[in-house]
Every structure is written in C-alpha cells, then in structure tokens.
C-alpha cells in the first residue's frame, strides 16, 4: 500500500486507478446505452437543450430486432464461431506437435526451425494480404469459410508453438523416461504422459487463439464477398453502413452482441487468457 496519509493514498492510488477504469470501460458503456436508445433520442445534436446522453428512460429493443430481422447477423455469428473454432483446433494440433518436437526432440536444424517459426509469428497479416488473396482465388477457396479456416492458422500456429514450447520445457524429462522404460513408444509417451500434464498450457493457447481469430479483420474483409459468408466484424462494417449513412443503433447492437461470445469465453478463463497473453510475449 502507499505509505503516508490518507490524501496521498487518494492522489496516488484511488483517483488514478478510477480514471483508468473509467476511460477504459466508457466506450463499452456507450455501446450498451446506444443499443437500447430509441432513434429519436439518438440523433439529437450535441448542443441540443435538455439532452441526457448518459441515460435513457425509453429503452428499446428495435435495434437488436433490426439486426436479426433485416440483416444476416445470426449467420455472421455462426460463421465467426465456426471459423474461430475450427482454425483454433487446427492450430492447437499443429502447435502442440511442433512445440513438442522443438522442445523435446534432437534433430538437425531444430534451432533454425524454432527461429523460423518465431519469425513467422511476427509477420503481420497486412504484409501478405494482396498476394494471398490471389492465391486463395487460384485455389478456389474465395468466398468460402475455408479461406479463413486455412489462413488463420498462419498467425495462430506460431503463437501456439511458441507457447507450448515454453510449457513443454518446464515439464521434467524424467516423467517421459519412466514411461519409456515401462515400454511406451515415443508417441505414446507424448500422448499419454506429457499431453495430460500440458492441459493448462493447451487451454491458454486455445483461448488466446480463439479470441485472436474472432478479432481478425483484414483477411475476412478481402477474402469474403457475399453477405451470407461474412464474419461479424466484416458484416457489421459493410452491411450497416450505406454510403455515408451509419445505422448507429443497429451498429452498436451488432458491436455489443458480436463482443459477447469472446467476453464470455474470456470471463470463464481469465487466468488462462492472461497466462496465454504473458506467455505470448515472454516465450
């Protein structure tokens, strides 16, 4: 705790912390209040008289209804969920295998391969999206969920591998050697002995990967074109803005509902998520 008098505690602790929390969370409050505010109140100019921006006495569900009745929002949610789930599973399998090989097995170029995977971890999507769009089209994957299911692992696998490598290194080698002496094959030892111990690491990698794929935008924007194939971030961006007209009510409703699945996953596994986040930078 801060040493000194009560006022010091307020000035150096409570007030700054409160300000941080307020600023970090206010946009979400604004999202929620806009979702339930009727259009008549929404479009009042900033200097209108008797305008209460922070509360509404006439909450409405019209924006949420609009989202489900007039747009393909539920389809976008389903697409996003499917793509995030499948690409996470693919990345976890690849990442666990590669992480195990790089952390535990002796083979030529192990070090070089580890570095290569670390470098791909740092390749941003925006470096490759134009040639990749071409490749996706040539493979006949354009405008299908596969375009994303197969490309998301490119930024998820390096991260999962990196995280799992660190995790496997922390598991004592003796554990595996015991199993091998008892007659287990190398693969069996990995599958039955090491993997169960590594479950917390796999959870962290999985949850982090899931939120990353839910968040992805530029690949989804470039590779998908028909409204029924889109993911939530792209659908909300392209279908709720007509020219210069923003449908702010449904837009905020879409932003709110589109955030809820990640928020739920996150809230159940905060500790795993934080472990994944800090592991992702520490390695």
């Amino acid at each position: 705790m801060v040493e000194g008098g009560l006022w010091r505690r307020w000035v150096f602790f409570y007030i700054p912390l409160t300000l941080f929390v307020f600023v970090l969370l206010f946009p979400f409050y604004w999202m929620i209040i806009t979702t339930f505010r009727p259009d008549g109140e929404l479009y009042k100019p900033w200097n209108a008289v008797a305008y209460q921006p922070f509360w509404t006495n006439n909450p409405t569900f019209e924006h949420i209804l609009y989202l489900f009745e007039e747009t393909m929002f539920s389809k976008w949610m389903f697409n996003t969920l499917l793509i995030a789930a499948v690409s996470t599973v693919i990345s976890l399998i690849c990442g666990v295998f590669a992480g195990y090989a790089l952390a535990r097995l002796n083979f030529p170029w192990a070090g070089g391969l580890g570095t290569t995977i670390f470098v791909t971890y740092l390749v941003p999507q925006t470096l490759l999206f134009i040639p990749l769009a071409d490749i996706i089209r040539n493979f006949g994957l354009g405008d299908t969920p596969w375009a994303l299911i197969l490309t998301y692992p490119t930024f998820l696998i390096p991260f999962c591998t990196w995280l799992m490598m660190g995790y496997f290194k922390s598991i004592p080698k003796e554990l595996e050697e015991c199993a091998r002496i008892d007659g287990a094959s190398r693969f069996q030892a990995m599958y039955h002995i090491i993997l169960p111990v590594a479950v917390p690491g796999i959870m962290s990698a999985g949850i982090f990967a899931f939120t990353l794929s839910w968040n992805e935008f530029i690949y989804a924007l470039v590779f998908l074109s028909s409204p029924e194939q889109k993911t939530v971030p792209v659908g909300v961006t392209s279908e709720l803005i007509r020219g210069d007209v923003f449908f702010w009510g449904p837009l905020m409703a879409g932003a709110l509902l589109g955030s809820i699945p990640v928020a739920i996953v996150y809230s159940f596994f905060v500790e795993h998520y934080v472990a994944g986040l800090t592991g992702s930078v520490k390695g």
Partner: protein
Amino acid sequence: MVALATSSAGGKRPAPRARLLEDERWLAFALLVPTAILLGLFIAYPFVKGVILSLTSARVGVEGEFVGLKNFVKIWNDGIFHVTVWNTFWYTGVTTVFKLALGLWLALLLNRHFRGKAFIRAFILLPFIIPTVLSTFAWKWMFDPTFSVINWTLYQLGFITQRINWLGDPDLAMTSIIIINVWRGVPFFAISLLAGLQTISPELNEAAAIDGARPWQRFWHVTWPLLLPVTMVVVLFSVIQTFADFQLVYVMTGGGPANATHLFATYAYQLGIGTGLLAEGAAISLAMFPFLFLIVVVQLLYIRRVEVR
C-alpha cells in the same frame, strides 16, 4: 535408443511405421509436417508471390508483365505515399510512448494489494479482447461530428463553444486515431508488465527501502532494470502490430480526410483492393518489410543475449 525401445517391447517387433517413429528425427519430421505445409503455403508462398507481383503491372483480371522496379519508383515519387510513411512512423512512435508510460503506471497501480483486484484486472483487459473493429465503431460514434458525446461533455463543462470536428480535420483525425490505439494497447502493456513486476521479489524493494531509498529511487534503480527484459519484448511486439495496423484506421477514417491519415496497410488496401492496382498495392505492403525485418532482428538478438546471460 532404437535398440532399447524394440527390446523393451517384449521381443515382438513393432510395425515398420511405428519403428520409424521411434527415431527422434523421423518423429520430429512427422510432427512438424502439418505446420510446415500450412506456413509454407500461406506465408512463404504468398511472400514470394508478393515480391513477384510487385515487379509486374498486374491489375485485377490482368496478369500484367514484368516491369522491374517501376512500381517502387512510382510510389517513391508519390505524395500520398510520403504522407503515409510519415503517418505510420508518427503513429507508431507516439502511441508506443503513451502505451508504455500509461501501461507501466497502470501495472504499478495494480501491483498493490487492494480489495477487488482480480475483478478490476479482468475488466481492464476488455479493450484488448473485444474485436478491434467493434470497439472502434463505439469510438467513431463517440467522435461523430454532430452527435459526439465528447463534444457534449466539453460543451457542458464550458471548455468549448463550437463543435470540434474530430474526424474532419487531418491533425485531429490523426490524434483521434492515436487516442484509440493507446486506449486499446494500454491494457496489453499493463497486464504484461504486471506479470513482469510479479516476478520481482518484494524483498529487493524492502531492502532498498531499509537502506533509505525513496520510492522514486527504488523504482528507477531496482524495479526498472529488472523489468527491462519484459518491457523490451512487449515494446517490440507492440511496435510491429502498430506499424502494420489496419482495422482502426480503416474504420475511423478510411485513410481520409483527403488521404491524410493513411498507414501502409490502408493505403495498400485502397490501391490494391479498392482500385484494383494489385501490383502497386503489393509494392506498398512490401515497403513495410525493411522496417519490420529490422525490428525482428533486434528482437532475435535481444532474446539471444538474454538467453546467453
């Protein structure tokens, strides 16, 4: 190793495939193949293809022909590209300084014991986990020229009498984008640095306190040097992400007003996908490469140095 494994299986020889997997090299190969295929197909191949594409005159639907460095010469002389380069460095530099300073401050606040700490820590990460595009829309609505709640608040408090056109003025638009990036990045810095702070034994600080060090001295001479390795990695990581950012600018301004807020990625998108000049778009994307490469090299060298020590 192989001999030991086969004899322990009780004399019965395992199938050839299983025996092959007993060899560490073959097992490693088998385990790495899926990763190698995916990364090769969707990172290495597009990278090579991107380089080739940037040397042609390809457009959407037109194969184009080899033109050498013409696209790079063209963007080198392009006024909008100059603004883009300047914007990207300015955006990356300013946001990184603020994210580090505010993130460190927040991490130090959270490193204390108080009631509801776990709760607050969970909540402040929200800006980082909620999809960027979606939270950026909330900001865009808050910065809306006519209905801005920020303007309303400033007006009610008596700070302004005229509206501030946040996204209509080039400098203000850039400032708005920087504010949102900092808002989104501070939780990531804070939580990563907090993890770093928690590995520092409190006894070190106590010892320094007994020796008469003031709080500021304790931070500067004890905490900061020990936190530096984590800080370095977090900063380099964030610099790469920010330098290559797309979503935030795409949603807030689309690069406008009058191409004043473009970053590499948004300008590449506008030319490559928007107007269909694939080759030029690819060239602009690739122009990011030298800087990214430099950061990655620094990061690799730094990690190696830390590992050797």
